[in-house]
């Protein structure tokens, strides 16, 4: 049961990350390949405030959300002038920059090479409570994202994705919408980072590398771009799929490589046969 709670919590965390990534990638067409950076900022802010400064975890979570949103806005600003492929490359760079920051704070700031010993309040204390709270927050994020994508704002985001020059000709600055949604996604990802720290009890810089960013792309690629349900579905299916491999009774040294290989095959198959993912509403073909 403990393990199921843990899995449910982990799934909820990644659902928030995937929802946020889908806002920018699937709905707005911004190829975000560095979401792990904002996840890391959120995790370090929440855990750092809580462990090192004794800040109440609820407040620390709120801080994680706000700081990550601000960091996302600040990091997007210089990237807005570049487009398409080069934008994607630049966001890829965010992974390395932020990993290095987390890593190199190590000798100077207590706890940055690894933080543990979170003091969690009741809502997060037991594994059951932690699951319930995290799942409730994920549900809240889900509703918020659905409200956004179903609103005039969501419509404008899709217009930015489809033809930014045409939207500009209609009197609306595409960059305003890009900035807004990137910050919102960064904030949500930061919140997920704080929750991730609570789920794992321990964080270190290796959790927030390119691997994590790629994983997010896989989740929404499988579930489907421009779909809130797709974000949920991709995370649930892949994490459950990954876990189920453990119960096949294979020798443990084979499980890891097998997971990787099957993940890879799944992705290749999907890109060949179903580029929209399971329930996606958009693909980059055109």
């Amino acid at each position, binding site marked *: 049961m403990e393990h199921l709670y843990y899995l449910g919590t982990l799934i909820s965390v990644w659902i928030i990350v995937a929802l946020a990534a889908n806002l920018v990638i699937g709905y707005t067409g911004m190829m975000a390949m560095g979401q792990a950076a904002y996840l890391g900022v959120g995790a370090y802010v929440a855990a750092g405030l809580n462990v090192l400064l004794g800040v109440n975890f609820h407040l620390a979570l709120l801080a994680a959300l706000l700081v990550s949103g601000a960091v996302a806005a600040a990091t997007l600003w210089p990237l807005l002038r570049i487009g398409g492929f080069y934008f994607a490359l630049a966001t890829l760079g965010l992974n390395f920059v932020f990993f290095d920051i987390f890593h190199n704070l190590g000798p100077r700031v207590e706890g940055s090479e690894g933080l543990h010993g979170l003091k969690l309040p009741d809502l997060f204390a037991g594994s059951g409570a932690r699951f319930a709270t995290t799942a409730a927050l994920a549900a809240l994020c889900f509703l918020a994202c659905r409200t956004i994508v179903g609103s*005039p704002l969501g419509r*404008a985001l899709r*217009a930015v994705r489809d033809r930014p020059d045409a939207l500009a000709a209609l009197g609306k600055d595409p960059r305003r919408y890009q900035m807004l949604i990137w910050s919102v996604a960064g904030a949500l990802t930061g919140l997920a980072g704080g929750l991730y720290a609570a789920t794992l009890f321990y964080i270190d810089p290796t959790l927030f590398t390119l691997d994590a960013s790629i994983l997010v792309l896989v989740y929404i690629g499988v579930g489907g771009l421009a779909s809130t349900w797709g974000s949920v579905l991709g995370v649930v299916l892949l994490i459950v799929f990954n876990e189920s491999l453990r119960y096949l009774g294979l020798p443990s040294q084979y499980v890891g490589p097998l997971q990787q290989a099957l993940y890879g095959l799944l992705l290749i198959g999907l890109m060949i046969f179903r580029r929209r993912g399971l329930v996606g509403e958009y693909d980059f073909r055109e």
Partner: protein
Amino acid sequence: MTSANNGLRIDGLAMNFGGVFVFDDVTIDIPPGKVTACIGPNGAGKTTIINIVCGVFAPRAGEIFVDGVKLAGVRPFDTVRHGLCRSFQDVRIFPFLTALENILVAMPGQSGENLLGLFTPGARAQERANREKARLLLQTVALEGAAGRPAGELPFGQQKLVSLLRAVATGARVLLLDEPAAGVEIDLIPRVVDLIRALAKAEGRATFLVEHNIDLVREVADHVCVLQGGRIIASGAAEHVLGDETVIREYLGRVYNA
């Protein structure tokens, strides 16, 4: 410099791309309630005029006035704020948005496009009203049946009509239409004609039309100017310019004999 005139005034525009000369001393008045067409061969710089007015390119010389107020340093997304909106020759529809959404997205001042405004009841009421307006616009070109279809799946001519309505929906007083009839199926042309007429005559918008389809120009244009070889070779009332011998020899004749 110029007296306050209504509509759009393009005054002494000159342009070159690097060392490539495009045109010199282009002056066109585009008054409200009238359709002013610009014709001329490919590469004469007709679309370039629109691009300059909308802030895509900076001219070498010349000035642009909207209702007597000089436009300076506009960026493309500023134009609507100044009362101008352009359409594109190659449509540039939002393919994954429905026809209705294509029009809705163009409407100005939507509180539902702000993160905080989005959750207010006012935003919902405004959205309902906007949807109704967009539906009425589609009705004017008999496309209400396509409202819910992704615009990318519509036939080209219908996409073009939707893209014109999109420009209309911005509420701009001056419309710059770049070849609205090009590539449009022949049976849809009358709807383009009716729409352009209605915009100018019924709604009093200043309409600038760049067009190769001379039949369409004959039907809708009040004033015509001919851009050729880097200058305006004729300008004036439509029937006068289209009957002008030089124009027929230099441009129209060539088209019909081709």
